[in-house]
């Protein structure tokens, strides 16, 4: 049996707009090993969320998946019909989003919403569904679950709402959880609790996780492997320690250096920055999209599209000078 629960191969997702075709995701390939967590990292607009929506085939027009394969347990999701896909969503692949307030229906109790998720996929009586709902709420550590089950979303704090979302996602025992910025809207103390909860549940439910985030601290704590996205492409993919200790793409390096760190040097130092701004996806530069901002740039970078190059067996980089990256990182 294949070790990878998910293999995304050369995925392209485009949005046709009046101003032209936006290549939101291009040539994206990665795989997630069973039981592991892959973090998809990047700044706004890099295509990380569109990638996750593509996996669930939830991209709305004018967006469209124009190429590639998405192998989930060796089946290509892009070849399934709508009914087959619906059975996969929720039951085998579940998703949680950034903002639990807008993903929950304000006029139903949280218990009703969790129970609905159960009833959609399992044949249970109302009573049984309610018992299972309370049980699920306890597993995501909502205190006093038997009473909270009748609360409406607005009666819960942000952290509790995110727990409800997680309960809904896990209620049908999915194999893969896609978590799109699950803690971004939360305060740091609540974030820490939710991350801990997700870590524990991952083991309990035997989950594989695709974590989408822009927060490198969250990545360092949660991920086994990391894929860094820039302007619609994966620019580097590696085990988490390699990404943080020896980045092999100039963008990854720049990103790591621009993060202010707690109590690092003691005295104030200027933060490193990546000069310039992300290019428009409507009008990407020829060759490497990062070249205009790169400190290692040379003429060859702008000649043709750079493929993902193998750095070692375990990692790859979309940079023809990857062996030079790290030379400026000398502190």
């Amino acid at each position, binding site marked *: 049996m294949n070790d990878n629960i998910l293999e995304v191969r050369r995925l392209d997702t485009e949005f046709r707009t009046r101003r032209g075709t936006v290549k939101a995701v291009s040539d994206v390939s990665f795989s997630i090993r069973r039981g592991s967590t892959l973090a998809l990292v990047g*700044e*706004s607009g890099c295509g990380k969320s569109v990638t996750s929506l593509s996996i669930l085939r939830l991209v709305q027009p004018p967006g469209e998946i124009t190429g590639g394969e998405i192998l989930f347990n060796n089946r290509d999701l892009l070849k399934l019909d709508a009914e087959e896909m619906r059975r996969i969503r929720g039951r085998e692949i579940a998703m949680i989003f950034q903002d639990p307030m807008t993903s929950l229906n304000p006029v139903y109790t949280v218990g009703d919403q969790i129970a609905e998720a159960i009833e959609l996929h399992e044949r249970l009586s109302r009573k049984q569904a309610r018992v299972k709902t309370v049980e699920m709420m306890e597993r995501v550590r909502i*205190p006093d679950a038997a009473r909270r089950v009748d609360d409406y979303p607005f009666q819960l*704090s*942000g*952290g*509790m709402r995110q727990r409800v979302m997680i309960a809904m996602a896990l209620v049908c025992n999915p194999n893969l959880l896609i978590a799109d910025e699950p803690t971004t809207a939360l*305060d*740091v*103390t*609540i*974030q*820490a*609790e939710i*991350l*801990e909860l997700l870590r524990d549940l991952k083991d309990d439910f035997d989950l594989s996780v695709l974590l989408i985030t*822009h*927060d*490198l*601290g*969250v*990545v*360092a*704590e949660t991920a086994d492997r990391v894929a860094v996205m820039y302007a619609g492409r994966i620019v580097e993919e590696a085990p*988490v*320690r390699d990404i*943080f*200790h020896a980045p092999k793409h100039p963008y990854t390096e*720049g*990103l*790591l250096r*621009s*993060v*202010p*760190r*707690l*109590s690092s040097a*003691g005295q*104030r130092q*200027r*933060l*490193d*920055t*990546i*000069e310039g*701004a*992300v290019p428009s996806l409507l009008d990407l530069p020829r060759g490497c999209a990062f070249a205009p901002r790169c400190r290692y740039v040379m003429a060859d970078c702008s000649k043709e599209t750079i493929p993902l190059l193998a750095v070692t067996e375990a990692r790859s980089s979309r940079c023809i000078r990857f062996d030079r990256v790290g030379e400026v990182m000398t502190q």
Partner: protein
Amino acid sequence: MNENGKDILIEVRGLRKYFPVGNRLFGAGGEMVRAVDDISFAIRRGETFGLVGESGCGKSTTGRCILRLIEPTAGEIIFEGRDLLSLNATEMRRARRDMQIIFQDPYSSLNPRMRVGEIIEEPLLIHRVGSRRERQERVTELLKLVGLDAEHATRYPHEFSGGQRQRIGIARALALDPKFIVCDEPVSALDVSVQAQIVNLLEDLQSRLDLTYLFISHGLAVVEHISTRVGIMYLGKIVETASSEEIFRNPVHPYTRALLSAIPVPDPDVKRQRLPIEGDIPTPVNPPSGCRFRTRCPVVEPRCAEMEPEMVEVSEGHFVACMVIAPGGEKM
């Protein structure tokens, strides 16, 4: 100027802001949200005072009260020796030339129908500064100061990225040559690489223009980086203040400790020892008696419910409001 505090630019004393709880329609009434409840601190000339806390702790309300963008319920705000709360509308408008604000969201704080040049010029017009020509020159100068081009003046905000919009907001804040700027989560909506550019810009401007900042943020790493001194807020109160270095290296208050231990470290080899705190933040409508953190505190004692802790100096310039860890602050 205050005699014993020559280098103090602004001092907040006993600031309170209570908001009536809505829902008047149904006759509930009398209840108040105590968003800011008796806080005091001083900011020295040229320094950056970081105000940190989680959502709803009252940090933004504090920033706005200082500029009187919302009217405080009680307290004093002494700016260069004068209590701003005693000023009438005309005097206050004049005083505002010296104090400006930069907002979090560069998308909603700039008027989309105005050109960038007009946005930056507007404060000059309101305060009737200079001739038309002089104002144009000033706009050009300001654009360059924040790292934009003179040609950008004729464009509209939507043509700019988040980072550039924040630069426009900063240029507008600088138009009247202020002494003091409230930076209310100025980088929270920005991507990390852009965040670093704006933080560096704020630091450069501070040294070039001799500015004093109140830097409000929930991002602790950014606050540590930019601040000279830091105040930690919880539920309308400041629970601890110290120099930035001291507070991050040697946090004393149980809430500060829990907060700092919750931050994920961007290094997979560092194993964080999280000090968990229980439950959720209580409502500011009916905050706990005594110490407000006691309902979630790992070292709580019975007396914490009876008395409100006062700030005690635990080492030079390091103040903590906790009777258990920093005894001596018992107020009867």
